[in-house]
């Protein structure tokens, strides 16, 4: 899919969290200036496919509507915080980490397609202040995630 949803928000979350509490984060500093692979180094990925675009069929298609939470709302790891609509289907968006929503990308209400066209930059969805930075340890790094996607597609 549309697994391209989270990388930008992760980047931003890390930025925020880094400024708030540097020592808590074990993730390496990311670099958007590096070569643009579809699975970016330095980002972390969830098994429910939030974070990055899978280099294969676009499973969801064009996003036509995004439903996002309000600022201040809590999100928890693995649970839904919103939804995207693509043609006929709504699909839950699951949070890779727990925390508080500190900012919501209001551009997405007028331009939901940014999630498809600019997943690492303008298509970010929410910024989260992590409540439990150790959750980042349970997420996958780029290579691990790429392998996970290949295995998942091969099994269907």
């Amino acid at each position: 899919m549309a697994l391209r949803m989270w990388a930008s928000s992760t980047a931003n979350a890390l930025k925020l969290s880094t400024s708030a509490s540097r020592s808590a984060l074990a993730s390496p500093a990311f670099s958007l200036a590096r070569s643009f692979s579809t699975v970016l180094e330095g980002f972390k990925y969830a098994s429910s496919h939030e974070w990055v675009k899978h280099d294969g069929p676009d499973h969801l298609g064009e996003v036509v509507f995004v439903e996002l939470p309000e600022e201040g709302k809590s999100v928890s790891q693995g649970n839904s915080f919103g939804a995207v609509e693509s043609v006929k289907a709504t699909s839950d968006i699951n949070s890779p980490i727990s925390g508080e929503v500190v900012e919501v990308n209001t551009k997405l209400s007028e331009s939901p397609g940014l999630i498809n066209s600019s997943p690492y930059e303008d298509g970010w969805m929410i910024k989260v202040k992590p409540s439990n930075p150790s959750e980042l340890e349970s997420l996958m790094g780029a290579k691990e995630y790429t392998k996970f996607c290949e295995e998942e597609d091969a099994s269907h």
Partner: protein
Amino acid sequence: MAVSQTRNLGLPLINLLRLKGVPILQQLHLEERLLRTSSDNWCIINDGTIDPTIVMGVSGKPQELLEIESILRDDIPVIRRFTGGGTVIVDQGTIFVTFICNKDTVPGLQSYPQPIMSWSSLLYKKVFQGIGDFRLRENDYVLGDRKFGGNAQSITKNRWVHHTSFLWDYEISNMGYLKLPKRAPEYRQARDHLEFICRMKDYISRSSFIDSTIEAVGSEFLLRSAELEDAHCTLGSKFEPSSRLLRKQELGEAIFKSLTASQS
């Protein structure tokens, strides 16, 4: 007996819930609850709904999709449902078929919109074998080049729902409440509603369609008959479904939006 038991070994279990004339809002609430709080597979067939009702998808904008003044004048209820997709007007001539499944239920099926859509079309292909030129065209069920069934889905982390409203019959006058949508499949080619849709009753009787559908479901699942009370028993009481009736005030505000949009 032994033969049928052997045939059914390994097939996933599905609860078959047959309803008749249940109001569409009640059906949508039931579906959303079962999607979110049940861990069973369900096939729900609702044979007609009582009152003509307009049902929009989750992001539907009334001012773009509906002839609101006529709707308010004639007191037609408008619902926003929890699944994606377009706008339909449903009534006693509509037959609803819904599948709610765990993501690993159907072997080899990825829980994304297109695979689920394709899987469902293979099931209905069995129903229409020898009856009509049935196919899945973009995301619609068609006979020839005319739509007779509209689909919508909602996909969660571990489950999905795929539901269809089948036009067994419809009132021509009701189609007048719907505008030509901005977002339409290519094969529609700007045809208005009456040139674009067809009635299933011209091909198959109501009871034959339902019986054949159940038979097709039974070829892929082990059917267990369920009653409405069974469905309610399994439901978590805290869950609040999101499908809802739009208030007249909201529809009035939508008229205002469309007027100001056309002036600006």
